[in-house]
């Protein structure tokens, strides 16, 4: 029986994919596991593997064209097998014709003329009319409860890996996906390390906390944001950066102010765990580890690679990780586990000349910092006007998790650390 090559959900939020390049041509033989195409998702360029053996008989979506997740984009079959059901007539169906028009996809549920005329209709073919995106060549198996919970949370089941029998997605998988971001398609040490229960503590919601959550959500929408702004004197941080860079110079390495800000934020979160938390709907998850998502602008969007355990890493290492991941983010090569599972985020638009701004929280995280640029500013000190390097930070807080005083205390610690970087060592 021919194997349909489908557009797979290669990222948690992918709805359609663009074929960047076919690595096999029509007529090439392929074995299961061979990389046959590069697919650009909403987040990265990923590899698509064959899930059957035979000959790549038919390419239905040309390079440059897009197809929705679940659609058949090619057919693998035996060299002489009948694939007329896919609308293949000898020599026709060349991929080039399809280049930049609408997705030229042969949906099996809507037979083309050729298929309609074919005497032997493919009655043994499993109906794929309303099947969700193919995963492992079949439908997604999920318990009714898991489906309901996923629908309620707006979670795409194709991005969740199932832990039940035969890969069935069950309640606990949805809970994990909602709190830690969807799991990577391939096993990865990082997300599994994240699932350790010792890494966080779930606090049940008090009646007051529930009321605050409900009332404030009614007021502003799904995530009730509020904003706290501070000015930070960055003089000492700039000095620290210079002296660190002088030390690193012979190794050819250097750090940026942003790396110091990441490190200071992580250290401050360690002292204010109430801000290092996720909103779970029926509980608040307070993390014992600090994973900072760093917003990186990419063409047509942004993505937040994560510096894991940022409170336990040196500034130089943080800098190296951020630059390496940002580079790959721009090439759209980040793996899903590298941009899901942050406990807090930072967005820095200082380099774009932004004085101050507010950032939108990335749920289920409870807070994000919006960092403005460092500017020479006249400041009154002891009755004298002096010039200082000032930077404005605005923190967006999810009021269901963080109250004003909680956020303010965190920001005070953060300011202390940036104004006296030595405080991070204490």
């Amino acid at each position: 029986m021919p194997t349909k090559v489908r557009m797979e959900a290669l990222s948690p939020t992918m709805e359609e994919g663009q074929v960047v390049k076919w690595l096999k041509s029509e007529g090439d033989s392929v074995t299961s596991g061979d990389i046959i195409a590069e697919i650009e998702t909403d987040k990265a360029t990923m590899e698509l593997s064959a899930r059957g053996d035979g000959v790549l008989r038919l390419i239905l979506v040309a390079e440059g064209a897009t197809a929705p997740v679940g659609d058949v984009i090619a057919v693998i079959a035996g060299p002489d097998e009948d694939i007329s059901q896919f609308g293949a007539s000898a020599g026709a169906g060349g991929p080039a014709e399809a280049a930049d028009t609408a997705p030229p996809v042969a949906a099996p549920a809507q037979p083309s003329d050729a298929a309609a005329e074919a005497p032997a209709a493919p009655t043994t073919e499993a109906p794929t009319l309303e099947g969700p995106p193919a995963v492992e060549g079949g439908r997604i198996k999920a318990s009714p409860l898991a489906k309901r919970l996923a629908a309620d949370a707006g979670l795409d089941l194709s991005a969740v890996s199932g832990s039940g029998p035969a890969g069935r997605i069950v309640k606990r998988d949805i809970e994990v996906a909602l709190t830690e971001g969807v799991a990577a398609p391939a096993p990865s040490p990082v997300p599994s390390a994240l699932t350790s229960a010792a890494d966080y503590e779930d606090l049940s919601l008090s009646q007051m906390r529930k009321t605050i959550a409900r009332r404030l959500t009614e007021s502003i929408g799904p995530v009730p944001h509020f904003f706290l702004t501070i000015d930070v004197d960055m003089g000492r941080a700039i000095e620290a950066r210079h002296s660190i860079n002088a030390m690193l110079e012979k190794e050819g390495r250097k750090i940026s102010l942003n790396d110091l800000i990441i490190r200071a934020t992580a250290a401050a979160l360690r002292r204010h765990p109430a801000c290092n938390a996720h909103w779970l709907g029926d509980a608040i998850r307070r993390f014992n580890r600090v994973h900072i998502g760093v917003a990186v602008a990419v063409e047509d969007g942004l993505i937040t690679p994560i510096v894991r355990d940022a409170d336990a890493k040196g500034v130089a290492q943080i800098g190296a990780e951020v630059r390496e991941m940002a580079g790959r983010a721009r090439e759209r090569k980040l793996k899903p586990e590298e941009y899901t599972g942050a406990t807090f985020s930072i967005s820095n638009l200082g380099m774009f000349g932004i004085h101050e701004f507010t950032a939108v929280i990335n749920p289920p995280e409870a807070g994000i910092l919006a960092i403005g640029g460092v500017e020479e500013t006249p400041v009154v000190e002891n009755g004298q006007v002096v010039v200082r390097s000032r930077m404005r930070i605005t923190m967006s807080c999810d009021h269901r998790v963080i109250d004003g005083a909680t956020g303010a205390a965190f920001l005070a610690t953060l300011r202390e650390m940036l104004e006296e970087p030595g405080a991070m060592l204490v």
Partner: protein
Amino acid sequence: MAELTYREALNEALAEEMDRDDSVFILGEEVAEYDGAYKVSKGLLERFGDKRVVDTPISELGFTGLGVGAAMVGLRPVVEFMTFNFSILALDQVINSAAKMLHMSNGEIGVPMVFRGPTGAALQLGAQHSQACETWYAHAPGVKLVTPATPADAKGLLKAAIRDNDPVAVMEGELLYNVKGEVPDDDDFIVPLGVADRKREGDDVSIITHGRMVHVALQAAGQLAKEGIEADVLDLRSLRPLDVDAILETVARTNRAVYVEDGFPYVGIGAQIVSILMEEAFDDLDAPVLRVTQADIPMPYNKKLEAWTKPSAGRVVEACKKVLYAD
């Protein structure tokens, strides 16, 4: 409250209802002179006389028909079957007469009677005397069916059954007659038909069951608790009418269910419960509902084979872990 055996609780129920209502009388094999095969009617012949406590020939179809006739003309007979296994002989009177009379008489002739006796397997009584008969009775509209698991439920349900205006089967258990428990001594204590009872509270998995299997379920729940799994044990108590709300409530909380019964699996009571859960609780289920039942074979006489054939706490634990995806 007094501590009574299940047997004494049934005896109290009979005595109190016979005292309260002259139309109540008992008939069956050896219920009078011998005090009943399991001594449930002990002392009642002496107290109420041989017009109200009547020994019958070994003729289940005959004396059950006699009971139906008596009920049709205004008495409230309590027919004792030595075991419900023998009542299979009387099923024509139960299903075709007692259950259908109200319907076929256009609501004019009710049959307020009780069938009672032990159901289910005891120990090494062989295939013909070791079966759970709930399905035979629950299948037909028109008969109510209750299965008390504790002395208090035995008393309260039997009294409710005697007072009910429809035919009610009260299925007891040979292995339950010596079980002791607190029983309210109020003469008007009844357990309403159609109300389930949560025998243990837990939020991880629902064990739904009835009759003697309640004790097996509680034993399994105890074993699960040692592993940190808290089971909700719901005793249906009444199989018709059925407390559907209680079933849906527990499953909505735990998202998984195991039905335990000592009847055969095929077209069993558990099959009915599974069907209800599929229709009414589909979106609450995180795992397929499992059943733990007698094996689908006539009961072997051999002791070890018999033990293997019956539902056990170990098998209930296994099923619970399976629906929890914990194995």
